[in-house]
């Protein structure tokens, strides 16, 4: 449905040349929810804006529904954009129009008759669950409601593709979930292809079927969401996966931590389970086999695409030798281990 072929985007800032995108190739199949994740400044926003040519790529082509957008005249492009819906981080609703009239805008632009607009808009507001807010102005809506209006507006011209530019980044976690659910619903009901960019791995995990990771203007990894979570190949991918787990050392532990082992102190270890780790109850096996006690400080395990993965912070109480054997055992079973220090 969307084909991005060898797209480059170069910005000039005075004498400086900034390669915002280099050699991007992506193919997004009809009906998928495709996520592009990257940290800020990685080029993800430029990438999604290239798809409907809000940003014209310096080279390469963008093919949406079989039409190469880069080759169109500006009038043809305007008409083709009506087949591509887009929602934004800051909603971009017109403050001078009511909810109803905001959703009606794309239809007015296309010259649809008033009575038809009414039927269409009422249906869309029903779909996003905002029928009773029809005559309200956006200023009186919550962030989540504004994004629902924006989604209804984006769907008004029956697009084949929906672009989501950080659509949930300005929303709280609960609202984010409800918006993601709505996106999933329209993906299934309307068989809409969705391309979304985000910096939150939770969003990707929540609804995407496929994901690409972008860093410094290059796509570094892409594939099924489960595969990426289970077998991240690049450091960048691992960082994003870790960011969804986010385990930090509690402050009082940090202050009691030493770099060297002394008598009466025990190692604080970070264990990282990936798709490669042996799928067995490793923690209790280690405890039994090497006669050590394991105290789990915090742990965040998850299950995506048939794979268990996650991070764990744990103290290993036992003799120095036993602890080392235990860590070696875990290492053999493909658990990534990092001894953070020794806590007295």
């Amino acid at each position, binding site marked *: 449905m969307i084909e991005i072929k060898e797209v480059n985007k170069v910005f000039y800032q005075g004498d400086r040349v900034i390669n915002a995108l280099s050699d991007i190739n992506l193919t997004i199949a009809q009906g998928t929810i495709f996520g592009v994740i990257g940290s800020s400044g990685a080029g993800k926003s430029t990438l999604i804006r290239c798809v409907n040519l809000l940003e014209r790529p310096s080279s390469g082509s963008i093919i949406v529904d079989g039409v190469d957008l880069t080759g169109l005249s500006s*009038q043809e492009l*305007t008409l083709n*954009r009506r087949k591509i819906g*887009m929602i*934004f981080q800051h909603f971009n609703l017109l403050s*001078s*129009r009511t909810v109803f009239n905001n959703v009606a805008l794309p239809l007015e632009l296309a010259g649809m008759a008033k009575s038809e607009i009414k039927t269409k808009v009422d249906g869309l507001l029903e779909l996003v669950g905002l029928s009773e807010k029809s005559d309200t102005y956006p*200023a009186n809506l919550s962030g989540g409601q504004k994004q629902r209006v924006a989604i209804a*507006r984006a769907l008004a011209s029956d697009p084949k593709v929906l*672009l989501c530019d950080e659509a949930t980044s300005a929303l709280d976690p609960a609202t984010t979930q409800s918006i993601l659910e709505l996106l999933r619903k329209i993906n299934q009901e309307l068989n809409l292809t969705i391309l979304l960019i985000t910096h939150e791995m939770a969003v990707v995990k929540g609804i995407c079927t496929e994901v690409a990771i972008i860093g410094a203007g290059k796509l570094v990894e892409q594939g099924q969401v489960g595969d990426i979570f289970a077998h991240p190949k690049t450091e960048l991918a691992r960082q994003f996966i870790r960011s969804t787990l986010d385990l930090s050392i509690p402050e009082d532990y940090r202050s009691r931590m030493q770099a060297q082992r002394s008598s009466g102190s025990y190692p604080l270890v970070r264990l990282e389970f990936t798709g490669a780790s042996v799928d067995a109850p490793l923690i209790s096996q280690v405890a039994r086999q090497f006669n050590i006690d394991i105290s789990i400080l915090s742990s965040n395990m998850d299950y995506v695409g048939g794979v268990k993965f996650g991070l764990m912070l744990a103290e290993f109480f036992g003799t120095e030798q036993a602890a080392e054997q235990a860590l070696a055992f875990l290492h053999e079973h493909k658990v990534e281990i990092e001894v953070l220090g020794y806590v007295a």
Partner: protein
Amino acid sequence: MSLNSAADWWAANERLVYLLIDALGQTLAMVFSSGFIGFALGIPLGVLLHLSKKGGLLENHVLNRSLGIIVNIGRSIPFIILLVAIIPFTRFVVGTSIGTAAAVVPLTIGAIPFIARLVEGALLEVPSGLVEAAQAMGAKPQQIITKVLLPEALPGIINAVTITLVTLVGYSAMAGTVGGGGLGDVGIRYGYQRFDGTVMFITVVILVVLVQIIQSLGDHLVKRVDHR
């Protein structure tokens, strides 16, 4: 002044009263006709200034700079000089350089660049994301102007209208120079040159009330259309 003595004054100065009423009519005619023509020409000019800007919808550096320079020249000429400087043009347009109709020409010429800059400022307040959203949904440039930019900038534009009308009330006082009449003219001729303090006082009070009414109406309208 009690109600009685006001009535006495009224009876004793009937001619002056009619003079003031005429003058008020002339002021209103000058302010609103020049304001109206000024908006008809100044608003499109302001829109053009905004659109031709760098990164604007119809980016055009040469056009933007030329318009900018013309507008700045218009804004920098003191009104009293503009009034006499364009007398040939005024004569060409209305056939005479004396009278209320003749005063409308320089008032309009003075108002256009003023309005253009104010409208440009009002359009600048429209978040660029809205224009982008409209582009993304397939709006033509002309549709972006009429359906997004102008409606979204409406509170600011109404504010610009109010400021312009109030300024025009002030400018119209100078129109007496070309025989345009109006309250300012009465104030100068009867109040200042004939040392009639009462007339001076009355013209000033009427002007103050007029400005208050324009400003309140403007504020009220802004409140009604502003949903931000």
